């Protein structure tokens, strides 16, 4: 009965939305034109990167905070004392050597791809988010091949790596705020500043995304 009501509500909403979208006039504000007109002043050549890091860079700053926060929430919920001692069952033998060799071969390639994506972001699709995701995928692959242990409570260096990218971004924001407006880059340095921010973000996002996986899998020691 409850499920039926939910389905009925969802169907009604879909019908309403489709009906209302049917007679929709074109939007009155054309943002594509504004983005294209200001692209030369943004410091990068690709419109997506320009929107993410310059026009709406403040959104991105807060998004990075959300990702870092997600990791902190996982750390805050975790019970570190339960997972440490007894979970060290040796499962190394279960993983095939083929997988391990392939993972060892793929990892350097993935790191290279990540840095290519970071560099390509300024003139074609790419950028820190994609590069960080590839880095994180490499870490997850190494973990699944049993070459990288799951993470316990992160140490000082790892915490610096996790928060470093966000702090660089924040520092650029604070610096630009003292000069004028938040995240308003001087025209000549815009490209360099965006590259600096994106480089820091690539490392930190890679670590954060990998951490979301490697921290959550820390209690699975016995079951795998």
């Amino acid at each position, binding site marked *: 009965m409850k499920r039926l009501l939910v389905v009925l509500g969802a169907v009604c909403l879909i019908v309403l939305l489709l009906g209302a979208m049917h007679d929709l006039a074109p939007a009155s504000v054309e943002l594509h034109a504004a983005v294209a007109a200001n692209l030369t002043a943004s410091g990068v050549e690709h419109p997506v990167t320009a929107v993410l890091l310059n026009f*709406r860079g403040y959104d991105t700053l807060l998004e990075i905070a959300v990702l870092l926060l997600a990791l902190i929430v996982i750390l805050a919920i975790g019970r570190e004392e339960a997972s440490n001692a007894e979970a060290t069952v040796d499962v190394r033998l279960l993983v095939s050597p083929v997988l391990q060799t392939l993972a060892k071969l793929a990892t350097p390639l993935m790191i290279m791809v990540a840095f290519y994506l970071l560099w390509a972001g300024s003139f074609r699709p790419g950028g820190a988010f994609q590069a960080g995701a590839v880095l994180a995928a490499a870490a997850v692959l190494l973990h699944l091949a049993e070459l990288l242990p799951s993470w316990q409570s992160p140490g000082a260096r790892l915490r610096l790596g996790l928060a470093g990218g966000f702090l660089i971004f924040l520092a650029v924001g604070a610096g630009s705020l003292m000069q004028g407006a938040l995240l308003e880059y001087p025209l000549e340095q815009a490209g360099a500043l965006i590259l600096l921010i994106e480089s820091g973000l690539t490392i930190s996002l890679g670590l954060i995304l990998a951490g979301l996986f490697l921290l959550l899998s820390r209690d699975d020691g016995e079951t795998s």
Partner: protein
Amino acid sequence: MMVWLILLPLLWASLAFMLGPSRGVWPAIAGLVAQLWLAFALAAEIVGSGAAMHAVGGWGAPLGIDLVADGLSAAMLLLTQCIALPLAVYAHAYFKRDDPARNYFWPLVGFLLAGLNALFLSADLFNIYVTLELLGLAAVGLVAAGGGAQQIAAALRYLFATLVGSGAYLLGVALIYGTYGTVSTVTLVSLIGADAPDLVWIAGGLMVLGLMLKTALFPFHFWLPPAHGGAPAPVSALLSAVVVKASFYLILRLWVGPFSSLTVVASLVVWFPALLGTLAVFWGSYQAIRAERLKMLIAYSTVAQLGYLFLIFPLLASAGALQAGIMQVFAHGLAKAAMFAAAGTLIKATGQEMVAGLAGVAERLPVTLFAFGLAGITLMGLPPSAGFLAKWQLIELALSQQQWVIAFVVLVGGLLAAVYVFSVLRQAFLLAPADSVVTPVSRTLEWTAFVLAAASVLLGLRGVELMQLVGVT
């Protein structure tokens, strides 16, 4: 100046994270002192020279994001910082050295406050969504941190509620962007006023309903009592006092801003929030009277007190309704923070959490009980408290427009609040059973709660300044 209110908490939150588990209290308190000063300076500037604007990146809407501080946002910023600083001092004394909830408390609180401050300043619908995410995730983390299975279950329920709420809001934003091609609230006011296709009505409905879920307005309050009642006391205080008010602020903003032309066309729609608010006042008070656990009583009282906020919607057309609503936000915020803080002290001292076990605390913890009583005065709406001022103004407005029902709800709600506040006080003044043990607690815990409670009462004497601030546009 206003941007530092967002950057400072982000900075001390990430510093606290880098320093390591359970570290970072001093950067946090230093940051909070600076934020409090900034909030006062911003309010003074706005009263002097009108609303302030900051174009992030120097682009300006619609290409970039604008931050706008008018009287309403400055007042909310002021309330948030005023409550956060005493609660931070309280939390420092509250958590024991080995309490797992303390490990990541400071980073989580920092991100929570950054989300709140960013939300109050933003004039961009999508940017507001990002701040809602920051806020919701930090709040869920604070509820869950270091807790047992029950606390994590409450946090998970809270997470689902807040995600569904944000999801509905985001769908609304997407529809608005599809219709007008912009998400700037300032630009949208005239665009929606000029032409509002059906899609905008659906978008508005989704956004307001999603935010009502996040505000825990009856009947969407199901997640609030377990989450607020189960969290550690400083967290309950912060969540009940300011976090639920953030989504209320947003409903109010949208209602008098972009969607103001819609509410003129469909004039009956103003009674929808008022009806739910009325039900919330009665249902929340009834549950608070029946509650056996002290923190559940206070959490249900939050459900009831949030109801008053929604009674102002039918009156918004006349001057002063906004001020009455914000006065109630301040009164409840300060009083509820004080009440949860006092309850945390009482529970710590008596070692149990039932109302029935409070006998004898009046002579052992007089300051804490006095704080609880003062906060109760504000919730009941007795003079000279801020709660009295808010209710007085609400009743006056309701009577001047012949809305007898609203005046009646406000009066009865005050009486019901008296019932549950006195049920606690009566128990506390009973003689202690011979075998009861009251462990001594830190003075800091007692006096921070007292400061908050006294502020909620004394604000009534300085209400004119606050109302003047809220009026600045």
